[in-house]
């Protein structure tokens, strides 16, 4: 059965490109463009991997990540964070919030594909999370 990825991003053309790349790789890709309702969307779709942009209308990616981690249902769900600001400060903030993987825009198609595969690669979601070396969640 195909695995599900939820892309939370508000740039239409980035959504389109990522959706295409991942669909071609066999993923079911759901998208969500609003920050405020993003946590609810994760709860509704229960994806294997969440791709989360930092700059979203309504709520920042960091806040969404913190709320996800606080919820036992999503505490160990792999989250790949995308940001246009690669500063250490942002990376540290994402790591403190419990990110599984952090990626700076502009990334290449193969990078994001590999990242999503790696995050979902392990048979169990929890193992994938542990393999990413993060233990803060």
């Amino acid at each position: 059965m195909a695995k599900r990825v939820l892309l939370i991003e508000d740039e239409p053309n980035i959504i389109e490109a990522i959706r295409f790349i991942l669909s071609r790789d066999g993923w079911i890709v759901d998208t969500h463009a609003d920050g405020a309702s993003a946590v609810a969307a994760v709860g509704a779709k229960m994806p294997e991997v969440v791709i989360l942009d930092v700059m979203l209308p309504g709520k920042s990616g960091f806040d969404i990540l913190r709320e996800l981690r606080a919820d036992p249902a999503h505490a160990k769900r792999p989250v790949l964070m995308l940001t246009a600001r690669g500063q250490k400060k942002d990376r540290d903030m994402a790591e403190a919030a419990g990110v599984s993987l952090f990626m700076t825009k502009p990334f290449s198609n193969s990078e994001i594909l590999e990242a999503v595969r790696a995050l979902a690669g392990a048979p169990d979601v929890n193992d994938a999370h542990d393999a990413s070396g993060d233990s803060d969640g």
Partner: protein
Amino acid sequence: MPRTSLTGTRIRERRTLAGVKQAELARNVGISPAYLNLIEHNRRRIGGKLLVDLARELSVEVTQLTEGAQAPLIEGLQDAASSQTQGSIAPETDRVEEFAGRFAGWAALVVSQRDRIEGLERRIAALSDRLAHDPFLSDALHEVLSTVTAIRSTAGILNTGGEIDPEWQVRFHRNLYEDSQRLASGSQALVTYLDTVGRSGDEAGGAPFEEFEAWLDTQGRASGPVSEDEDRLAGLSTPAARKMAQAWLSRLTDDALAMPDAMVEDVITAHGINPAALADASGSDLAAAMRRLAVLPDAEGRAPVGIVICDGSGTLSFRKMIEGFAPPRFGAACPLWPLYQALLRPMQPVRRVIVLPGLPARRYLAYAICQPRVPARFDMPEVVEATMLITPYQGADDATIEVGTSCRVCPRLNCAARREPSLIMATPELESDI
């Protein structure tokens, strides 16, 4: 007599430096070696022709033996040495006086370069601060990076070949076109913005004040009283600096109206540099009288007058230095200054004789007052301003307090007010005896 005693020490230093024997120097100026020895060990007053002869023999200016003219230069050098953190050869801080004395020009260059480096560092800090916090810049960069991300992904898809549905292909081509348009206008906006930023000169936090100060230097801080003259502001490029200069000029104009030249001259003739006497004669407040005295043009036979003004946070907002007294360019000054003592007790006039470290120690008479900057109100915090007038002190009757300029270059190692360690390794000590 600190002044006299230090002159002797200085003569001895200079003589040793020049490699001249005591007996030889004594013979050249027509005194006995024993007498010179007494002078050098501060047992005899010296002045007049003998001092001039000694200075000539030692190839130095008389003032270099008597005044602390070099002190700010030496403090500057010590500060420059202290901020030098790497490099295999450490500056010979124990020989700083020798360096300043023998190579005054080079020493001045070192100090002016230190000032410039400090200014540039602050500018860089302000710029990077701005880069990190400027909302427009952050949005514009985000926009460009997002667009680049979309273009890279889309182009990657089209480029890798493989089966792409014709409908999708059309869509991706359209997206590419749209995004390239967006990128073009986004980067154009960014360039335009950066261009204006560079030109306005407003980007560095301290820049307007620095520009204002530089402008004051060209105007001659001492030149006053002034008329509202737009031309005088012509040299100022930033609106902020122009505003500061305008405010200052309008203050001076008010002061000059309240205290006309003739009145000021009369008061000085009768009482010397005395802000209380001028305030009394004119009905002005003490701070205004201090400003008025500080901006008088230099005149023959009149003691030089310096002034520093700070706001309630202690930040210096105006400085006019006099020889031997150079308030720090950046950062806070010495908390022992009467300026700050006045700040602690608003409306209470402070008069102190202060001693600045160095060889010889420099003594100044300081008057200070802290006054409300705006009329007091019930619904906002008090806004005050402290003003300190400073003039060289010749007398010997008053009790003195020892102060510094800023902790980093101050040799008073055990000062209770010290906020950071002194970077001067060895405190200059007077030698005791032969």
